[in-house]
């Protein structure tokens, strides 16, 4: 099992009030699954996404990622897990504006100490895989929205992570470009990658093999398609 969530709870304190963002989530995701997490705003899907991405830790419960328990890890270990195991794709791309596409893709490799000789090759390979082999020296502002998201996907792929975690990846793109990105995910999935997609668009979720619907911090429905 790649991901095992057991009795995950997440509380936030807003002043004196406690918000239960997640109430007892139990969830298993296997290798090479293509999962969509859906739900209205306030359902807890962002919180779940942050937990799955190791950007945050749960208040209660255990999270096993690829066999290791990450629930009680400290910041530094979580940073290493994010670097090795998780590739993020964000709605607003989150690329470094002044760095070239190549450098943006190299960034995760910098933080695990890959020497620059290997780094360029790996980053170029990832960019070629997403169809941007000819745009490597372009800066984000010289690229279209679709191309920027491809750079972000290449960055997510470059370290061969266990999961690709995409948060509304088509939210800032027009329909046609969005479809191209979804096709790209399809290809990655076919190539053996595990993909978790957070979205509120039904037609985007339909690209996945399994849809998990959240409401008020609970899993309301979990259906394979």
């Amino acid at each position, binding site marked *: 099992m790649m991901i095992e969530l057991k009795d995950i709870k997440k509380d936030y304190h807003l002043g004196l009030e406690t918000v239960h963002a997640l109430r007892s989530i139990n969830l298993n995701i296997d290798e090479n699954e293509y999962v969509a997490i859906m739900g209205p705003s306030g359902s807890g899907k962002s919180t779940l996404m942050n937990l799955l991405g190791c*950007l945050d830790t749960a208040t209660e419960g255990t999270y096993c990622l690829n066999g290791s328990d990450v629930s009680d890890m400290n910041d530094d270990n979580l940073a*290493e897990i*994010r*670097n090795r195991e998780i590739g993020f794709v964000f709605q607003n791309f989150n690329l470094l504006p002044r760095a070239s596409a190549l450098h943006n893709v190299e960034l995760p490799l910098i*933080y695990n100490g890959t020497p620059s000789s290997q780094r360029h090759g790996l980053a170029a390979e990832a960019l070629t895989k997403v169809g941007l082999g000819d745009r490597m020296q372009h800066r984000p502002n010289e690229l279209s929205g679709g191309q920027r998201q491809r750079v972000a996907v290449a960055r997510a792929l470059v370290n061969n992570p266990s999961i690709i975690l995409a948060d509304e990846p088509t939210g800032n793109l027009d329909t046609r470009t969005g479809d191209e990105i979804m096709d790209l995910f399809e290809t990655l999935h076919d190539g053996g990658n595990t993909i978790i997609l957070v979205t509120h668009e039904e037609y985007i979720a339909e690209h996945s093999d399994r849809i998990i619907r959240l409401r008020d911090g609970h899993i309301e429905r979990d259906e394979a398609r």
Partner: protein
Amino acid sequence: MRLRESAVQLKENVVIALDVIRNHKMRSFLTLLGVIIGVMSIIGVQSLIEGFQKSIHDQIEQLGANVFQVQKYPVNVGHHDRDKYRNRKDITWEHARAIEKYCPAVERVAPEAWHFEIVIKYRDRKTSPANVLAGGTPDFFANNSYYIDEGRAFSEVDVQQKRDVAVIGKDIVDALFPFEDPIGKSIIVDGRRYEVIGTIEELGRRFGGSEDNKVAIPLSTFLKYYGTNRSLNITVQAASVDMMETAQEQVIGVLRAIRKVPPGEPNDFEIWTSDTLISAFNDMTRVVRIGAIVIVSFALLVAGIGIMNIMLVSIRERTREIGIRMAIGARRADIRLQFLIEAIFLSVMGGLFGILIGVGLSQLIALATPVPAAIPYFTIFLGFIVCAAVGIIFGVYPAAKASKMDPITALRYE
């Protein structure tokens, strides 16, 4: 493994730091201005002081390792301290004669007197008041390392007969006798007429000024015109460098006897050697140095606050970048290092400019004025270290602040 990671990241951090500075040229420059001015001033002051010091040391060493002086006042007394020594008995020609007679370790004794800001005239020509009149005996020249260029020095006879004869330095020759042979000519020094009998070889610039501004006349003539109610300096040359100590002891013994200093009392006169002169001069420049350091410390404090301020602004602007870096695997320590390096780079870069401008300026001053300058290598090295320290001290807080950001909040920051 850890080491290799660090090396990879260090390179990345340096690249980022340079990129940020390049992308905010104006902002970086203004921030650096404080560091630049601070470092520039300290380097400028130090190079001038060191240049000055070197020339003074050379000058003092030219006195000779076997020469010392007897004077009424200690080296380097301020005006109010002077009163303390005023009541000492004057040092007289008699003392010089006694030293000559009773000190076997002494080779030559030359009593001398000085008068400053002297104007010299010859026909319709006239010097500036930057000249100095000395009264001496024939050994005055040897004891002060003055060599006769043309003509002759004054003799014992000149001294005995209080003749109005003068030996003049190169500056005065140049000013009064551009096209003539000065020997045998009649000049007017401070309103009195003298015959030029010799010239002193060019000495060049020392003490940051010319040494060739001397008019030497017999001591007897000097006392005749300027009064005997004064304390003389006695220049004493020991028989050899090895005899310096002995010669000084003998001179002290003779002078204490003549001046009737009771046993147990301290000397009521001073022995000046090149060592005491150098240390006195170093004491003097130390005050200037310390003053400069205090002022520069304040400048660097202000500069450091400027760096801290701009780093805080930069971190706020780049909140999302920090979030991105954290999301893809930067540890808190990585973020901290990144911003610390940026602050150090800013500061050291300012230091570099400051050093260049400071050295350049002092060299310019040295070219345009008689003030000498040296390149203060140690201060330059120190300047770098201090700038790096300023970067670290004032970069720590912003860097820590950046590293403590919550990645989720940082990613959402607009």
